[in-house]
């Protein structure tokens, strides 16, 4: 556990970057520091590994005052990932990942084996091992940055906007993989971001900091979205927080059987299957939803080329947010629900998802009252 105890950072010119901050980052969890620019989130992060020294207050890591440990030794025991990765341009990928093991005096062969193992774990092709960072894309470099931080298996990781410099699609992939890695490793992570969506997605706990480094609220994402403690937090969390909170609401919705045809089905088969309905769901070879067709407008067998793919697909065991989005985005108004392996389970209309949301809310508030 990392614990801030009334930590203040004041610069000689009187600027207070962090003001009397006390918070805990529990062991094995992701604690996200989020807030507008100038809220001292990066300063707070860098005080943990003493890249910046606090003016007053103490930071303890698993009970040990970090101020009493030699800074270089302290840092070798803490993984650190930054925006743009900050890889060493003059070292190959494998050498970059071996940095901390080498500093710790590991045997070269062992350090290299560890680096190769990590490349695989973060999803990097081992063929990249002897390339230089400038030969990799931004997303790949960021994976190397994560592998490098993990190399000596530190119990604590500090991450400073690690995914904000890559494009949104790559970012989402990196976030998902990061969550998968964390579920395997259970590190104690402090994660800085200015992006509330990223905070909500990744954080077990979110600490919202206000300008001047004051803690505005620390809570789980669901609580933060449902019960912001102040106007500042409410503003920062954003207007569609009610909708986004659904991401944390699971619940059962009953799926209807949906008539389907396989890809390549003839016009006659499609019209027969639809039975007069305007939209018909088409499945691919593995039984997964491929898209919708309008049988009345079909002139040729159902092919992948003219499917309507506008609808999102929700996992039946996922959140109600996904289920509602599937229903709202579907051209037929029927949201597609699938099993974890992607096979069709059935469809659900938006109204029924909303009923489930309401039922869940009643259940939760009455459960809370009793």
């Amino acid at each position, binding site marked *: 556990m990392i614990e801030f105890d009334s930590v203040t950072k004041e610069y000689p010119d009187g600027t207070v970057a962090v003001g009397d901050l006390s918070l805990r980052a529990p062991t094995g969890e992701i604690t996200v520091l989020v807030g507008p620019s100038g809220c001292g989130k990066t300063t707070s992060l860098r005080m943990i590994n003493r890249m910046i020294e606090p003016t007053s207050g103490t930071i303890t890591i698993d009970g040990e005052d970090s101020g009493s440990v030699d800074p270089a030794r302290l*840092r070798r025991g803490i993984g650190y990932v930054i925006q743009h*990765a900050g890889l060493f341009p003059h070292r190959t990928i494998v050498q970059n990942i071996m940095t901390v093991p080498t500093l710790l005096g590991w045997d070269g062969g062992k350090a290299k084996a560890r680096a190769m193992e990590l490349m695989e774990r973060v999803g990097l092709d081992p063929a990249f091992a002897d390339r230089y960072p400038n030969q990799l894309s931004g997303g790949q470099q960021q994976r190397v940055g994560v592998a490098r931080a993990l190399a000596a298996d530190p119990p604590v990781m500090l991450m400073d906007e690690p995914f904000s410099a890559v494009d949104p699609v790559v970012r989402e992939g990196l976030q998902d993989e990061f969550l998968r890695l964390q579920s395997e490793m259970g590190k104690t992570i402090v994660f800085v971001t200015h992006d509330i969506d990223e905070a909500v997605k990744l954080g077990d706990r979110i600490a919202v900091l206000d300008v001047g480094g004051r803690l505005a609220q620390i809570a789980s994402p669901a609580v933060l979205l449902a019960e912001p403690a102040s106007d500042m937090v409410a503003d920062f969390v954003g207007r569609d927080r009610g909708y986004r909170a659904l991401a944390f609401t699971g619940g059962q919705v009953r799926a209807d059987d949906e008539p389907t045809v396989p890809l390549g089905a003839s016009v006659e088969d499609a019209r027969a299957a639809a039975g007069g309905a305007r939209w018909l769901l088409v499945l691919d070879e593995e039984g997964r939803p491929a898209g919708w067709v309008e049988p009345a407008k079909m002139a040729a067998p159902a092919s992948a080329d003219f499917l309507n793919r506008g609808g999102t697909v929700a996992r039946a065991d996922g959140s109600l947010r996904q289920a509602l989005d599937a229903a709202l985005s579907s051209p037929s108004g029927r949201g597609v629900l699938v099993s974890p392996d992607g096979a069709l389970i059935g469809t659900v209309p938006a109204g029924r998802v909303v009923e489930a949301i309401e039922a869940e809310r009643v259940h939760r508030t009455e459960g809370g009252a009793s």
Partner: protein
Amino acid sequence: MTWFLSHLDDVGVFLAWHVYLSAVPLVLGLAIALPLGYLARRYRWLYPPLILGTGLLYTIPSLAIFILLPLLLGTQILDPINVLVAMTVYTIALLVRTVADGLAAVPDEVLLSATAMGYKRFSRLLRVELPLAVPVIAAGLRVAAVSNVSIVSVAAIIGVSQLGSLFTDGFARAFLAPIVVGIVACVLLALALDLLILAAGRALTPWLRNRRAS
């Protein structure tokens, strides 16, 4: 050509001296410019005086410095040491700024991550900053090498023999052959040193090749 062939030994000795007097100061100058450049980079307030001060050294006429140094060092006027020291001073004058700028060109996020990985200050300088400053320092070193080869020849006037002696000899006898041989030898030497530094710089920066190669 016949003059050159009949004086091959003399030209060889002059060339050897010329290499010695211009290349050794290059190494010494770099060794002294590295810490000075580092200080100029590390302590901002030191940058202007250090850069200006060392830069001014380069404006001292070489002949003056050759004559002044024996007074300062207590050496004989003909002692080649004077030339070595003078050329070292010129090298420092050119390289302090180069080293400081080369270190300044290392990206902030690289420094930040090196510190966060647990590098101590000196090993960070040695393992991260200096290797990344090599391209800039090598470029400065190439300028200094060519400049040294050219300035050293002036030392012939005070009687320290090297390729410059061919110029004084030719002038004294109003004889063109040694002058031409001296110029050609100087140009070739400058070119050779330049290529040597270029090759060394390339060898030390493998990451700058094969950008985005598949």
